[in-house]
């Protein structure tokens, strides 16, 4: 069993299927790069495993802890006797085949929605439980999302301090010492007292990385961490992420930086249209892609350069 397992994640937004059953595994300490064109569902996938979006179906496990487990609704079980009677009545009516099909589907999807609501009601997690579960995961956003009214050190320590106030554990001193270590690691020891508005984008993103690391997540996710940065600032952020690779952090990086995926990742996942089209080592994906779609995507990515 792998350290981090995602299976069969599905998510619809209205009538668009954004994720159509995504499964992958990550070993402890591995870096996984997720590549793919915009709209392929990469970001939604990260948001699902970070509890920012609730998937319709899917399971996420880290270690032996189940974080998300949303079963599929079986239409057979969702249908009540009344629904069945309704379907029988529709079928015996003298409508065209298509009309019958439409109407039957409507009844089924309505029953499924109802069953889903019931399941959600019965399995609703407390705020406390959701918080505990999501702390297994860490997230670094494309737009950094630092708290502008706190200085760099407070940005990194705030969550841990609030947590410690509730549950005991580390003292403020310990939390600060650790935060300073992390800030040194991302190369920002001299900016501890600065406010985010005084930092460059690259520096802000490095603070965001330190902030996420401060809570010791089992898996750290990056959502296009360099997409909002100038090319010259991209390097400093990627270097930090690369540096983390040797510290046993398990990371999932959604990225458009092909060079980064090729050189740093242990595993590359190519997503297209809400499914994983192909996954493998960087050598396999970049050197010898099997899927036509992957080939086309990589070719396009090369062309840009």
């Amino acid at each position, binding site marked *: 069993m792998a350290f981090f397992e995602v299976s069969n994640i599905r998510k619809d937004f209205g009538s668009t299927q954004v994720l159509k059953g995504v499964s992958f595994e990550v070993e402890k300490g591995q870096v996984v790069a997720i590549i793919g064109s915009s709209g392929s569902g990469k970001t939604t996938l990260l948001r699902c495993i970070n509890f*920012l979006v609730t998937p319709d179906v899917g399971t996420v496990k880290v270690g032996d802890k189940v974080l998300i487990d949303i079963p599929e609704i079986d239409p057979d079980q969702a249908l009540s006797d009344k629904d069945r009677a309704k379907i029988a009545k529709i079928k015996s009516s003298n409508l065209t085949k298509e009309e019958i099909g439409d109407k039957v589907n409507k009844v089924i999807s309505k029953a499924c929605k109802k069953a889903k609501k019931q399941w959600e009601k019965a399995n609703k997690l407390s*705020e406390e439980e959701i*918080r505990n579960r999501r702390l297994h995961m860490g*997230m670094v956003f494309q*737009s950094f999302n630092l*708290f*502008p*009214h706190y200085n760099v050190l407070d940005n990194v320590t705030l969550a841990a301090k609030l*947590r410690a106030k509730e549950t005991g554990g580390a003292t403020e001193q310990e939390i600060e010492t650790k935060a300073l270590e992390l800030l040194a690691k991302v190369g920002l020891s001299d900016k501890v007292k600065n406010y985010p*508005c005084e930092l460059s984008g690259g520096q802000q993103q490095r603070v965001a990385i330190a902030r996420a690391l401060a809570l010791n997540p089992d898996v750290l996710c990056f959502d296009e961490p360099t997409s909002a940065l100038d090319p010259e600032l991209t390097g400093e952020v990627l270097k930090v992420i690369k540096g983390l690779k040797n510290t046993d952090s398990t990371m999932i990086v959604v990225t458009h930086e092909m060079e980064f995926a090729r050189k740093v990742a242990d595993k590359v996942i190519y997503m297209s249209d809400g499914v994983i089209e192909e996954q493998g080592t960087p050598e396999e994906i970049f050197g010898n892609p099997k899927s036509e779609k992957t080939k086309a995507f990589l070719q396009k990515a090369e062309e840009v350069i």
Partner: protein
Amino acid sequence: MSFSEVTLSMLEGTKYTLGLFFITLLIAIPFGMVIAAFELSKSKIVSSITKGFVWIIRGTPLMLQLIVVMYVPGLVFGMPMRERFLAAIIAFGINYAAYFAEIYRGGIQSIPQGQYEAGYVLGFKRKQIVSRIVIPQVFKRIMPPMSNEVITLVKDTSLANIIGIVEIIMTAKTIVSTKGIIWPLFYTGVFYLVMSGVLTILFNYIEKKLDYYKI
């Protein structure tokens, strides 16, 4: 009537102006928060009713609202409003609460979703996100429009003379009509300028204090 006599009686009127000003703030600042919360409510019914209420309050003249609060209880319910000052406070309190509510709502909605998300992924409680992340930023954002609105309130208090509150303008008008001199009416401007000047300095100070970060 000498200059000092006029000044003294106008200072008497200033008491009512300032009283109305401070009590209105005391009511409108918290009441506006309640209205803003209702406006942002997830319940469509609650938010539409509140929005309708805000529309009525902002869509009609404050002077009319003063008259309604003053005379409608007596005309319609047979319970005449006995305290003119109370009527003024009710009308001003509700009116300004509606304006403040719109400012609060704008401030809250201007905080990017990413701030909430960052809080969530760091394991904050919803309450902590609101109190530690959202409200401090909203506070900074609403300062300029609030200062505008508060300075407007100082001048709006003069509307209370329509229901017979003896504030600065009313005092001056009385002097004008009883003593046959016109200048006290113009002199009122000095009183308003001093009050709004103090408020301007105060708000500039607060805004400067909050200038250590940018949103």
